[in-house]
């Protein structure tokens, strides 16, 4: 199976590798920055709690928060967002791939997985 000379496995492997490495790097920088502050207690305050009811709105809000300056919280939140986006992009790529490949069975299976995840990420 190849689309534009690349097979699905290569595309997926690339998405997973880049997604995990970038999110880990952002998280490590965020933690390093946090470690320069006064308190390192994990105190379970609402500041660190993820909230809202739409992951995509949260992700967008996290990106916009960088406009007000870079904080340990904004970096750590971005790292988690990027990590969660990684498998999501992997299904999206599979759905597109099987559609281009004209494999309706697996295009539908990928779209089902994508739809369930999208609903669960958007509708809480």
């Amino acid at each position, binding site marked *: 199976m190849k689309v534009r000379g690349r097979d699905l496995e290569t595309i997926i492997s690339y998405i*997973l590798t880049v997604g995990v490495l970038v999110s880990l790097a952002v998280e490590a920088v965020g933690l390093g920055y946090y470690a320069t502050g006064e308190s390192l*207690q994990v105190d379970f305050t609402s500041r660190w709690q993820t909230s809202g009811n739409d992951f995509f709105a949260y992700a967008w809000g996290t990106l916009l928060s960088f406009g007000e300056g870079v904080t340990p*919280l904004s970096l750590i939140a971005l790292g988690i967002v990027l*990590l969660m986006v990684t498998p999501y992009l992997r299904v999206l790529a599979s759905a597109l791939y099987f559609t281009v490949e004209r494999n309706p069975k697996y295009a539908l299976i990928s779209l089902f997985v994508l739809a369930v995840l999208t609903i669960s990420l958007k509708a809480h």
Partner: protein
Amino acid sequence: MVDVLTVLLISILAGLLGSLVGLGGSLITTPALVALGVPVKFAIAAGMVTIIATSSGSASSYVKEKIVNVKAAMYLEMFTIVGAIAGASITSVVPAKFLYFFFAAFLLTSFLGIGRLGRDEVPQAVVQDGLARWLELEGSYHDKSLGKDVNYKLTRPALGGAGMFVAGIAAGMLGIGAGAFKVSVHELILKMPPKVSTTTSSFIIGMTALAGASVYFFSGLLYLDLAAPMMVGTTLGAFLGGRALNRIRSSTLRRLFLVVILLVLVEMLYKGITA
């Protein structure tokens, strides 16, 4: 209460130990943090996010080498993600006491994998049922240890789907990968070759974890200052453990496995009884 550096250090050690004894993800990190006083539901929610990193990271190279069966994974993910969403929703509402006992009980499924250590034969003469043929559930991969290409066929996807739904519920409820259980479904029901089974399981765990995390994200149980060091630490520990794995004798690993399982089991039962 714990601080970020302690979580990081504990997660590195737990990730290292987990990868040595074949208990990936959060199966050790979560109980280790609970032992330090972290509320079990917070540890489970952070564990769910953590295993997106550990499983996706370890699966990526196996995908590229075409050992993972992507089609089988996509089919089985339909069941695990629905199970994981249901499981995470259950955890959000049930009393914590119940989770300790369920964690202890599910830990016993880890023994499913120990008899399989070192066994590597490919199921022969698998007769596919109609649904398996329709789903094109077959594949081939290059086995480096055998020095040849291995062709295989899978069967009974309907029953396999049901098994993966159960695996998804457990994974979502406990914030773990439920890898040993998934691998058993792959091999005993679908007749997947061991190498394909373990790598495809890692691949599926990343997606299952996202489904569970999609519930925990808005449940009020996910704290970023716990999840971030847990994710970085466990992934780093698992990476270091993977490098050390070949230098340790398998009899030592088996003993270590039993000690770790026993410790976690006793801890979770004790927490459950005293909660």
